């Protein structure tokens, strides 16, 4: 299994609070991605990174920001959490642009 972990695995927070999710990899892969998974929507890309300090927006980036200061860590921040951001968040990594992605175990976030 690819060495990819997410923390925390579960979190309950209140509307309006900031939340940071962490993705950590030990594979030295260049590309990292944050997705959210919601029933009926499959996986939707929030942000991705193609190198240290190189990030870009996905299709559902509003309300989210990311940072990648070193190869192994990719942080996702919800600046002011809303109930619509209640979801399961997955991190993925990829060694090259067109090869398969490896997924972390997910973080279940509930915003009350």
């Amino acid at each position, binding site marked *: 299994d690819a060495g990819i972990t997410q923390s925390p695995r579960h979190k309950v927070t209140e509307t309006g609070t900031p939340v940071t999710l962490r993705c950590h990899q030990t594979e030295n892969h260049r590309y990292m991605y944050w997705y959210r998974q919601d029933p009926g929507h499959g996986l*939707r890309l929030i942000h991705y990174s193609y190198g240290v300090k190189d990030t870009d927006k996905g299709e559902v980036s509003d309300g989210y920001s990311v940072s990648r200061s070193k190869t192994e860590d990719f942080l996702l921040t919800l600046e002011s959490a809303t109930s619509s951001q209640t979801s399961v968040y997955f991190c993925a990594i990829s060694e090259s642009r067109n090869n398969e992605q490896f997924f972390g175990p997910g973080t279940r976030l509930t915003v009350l």
Partner: protein
Amino acid sequence: AQSVTQLDSQVPVFEEAPVELRCNYSSSVSVYLFWYVQYPNQGLQLLLKYLSGSTLVKGINGFEAEFNKSQTSFHLRKPSVHISDTAEYFCAVGPNSGTYKYIFGTGTRLKVLA
């Protein structure tokens, strides 16, 4: 723009019967196609991938898929399913030139009945 369509949101099938999960894609250039499986409360695992070469791709757990360029399809098949195959299956298309984004279908929930 690329897109992926999984027409069946749920597929019930009896144990030891064959199954086909359908995936159609839209892409104007070369495609890289993937099938992933997700078991309850877990992340996604790669079942198989098509990058180039033979259009019939074999994956793990006895699954296979066929890339059909003329029909823009990449259907997943298994000749005989087991209870343990009950899971959600996602089709995805890899990035085109100039982008890094993978596009996922909305998933097909396979339920294997005893």
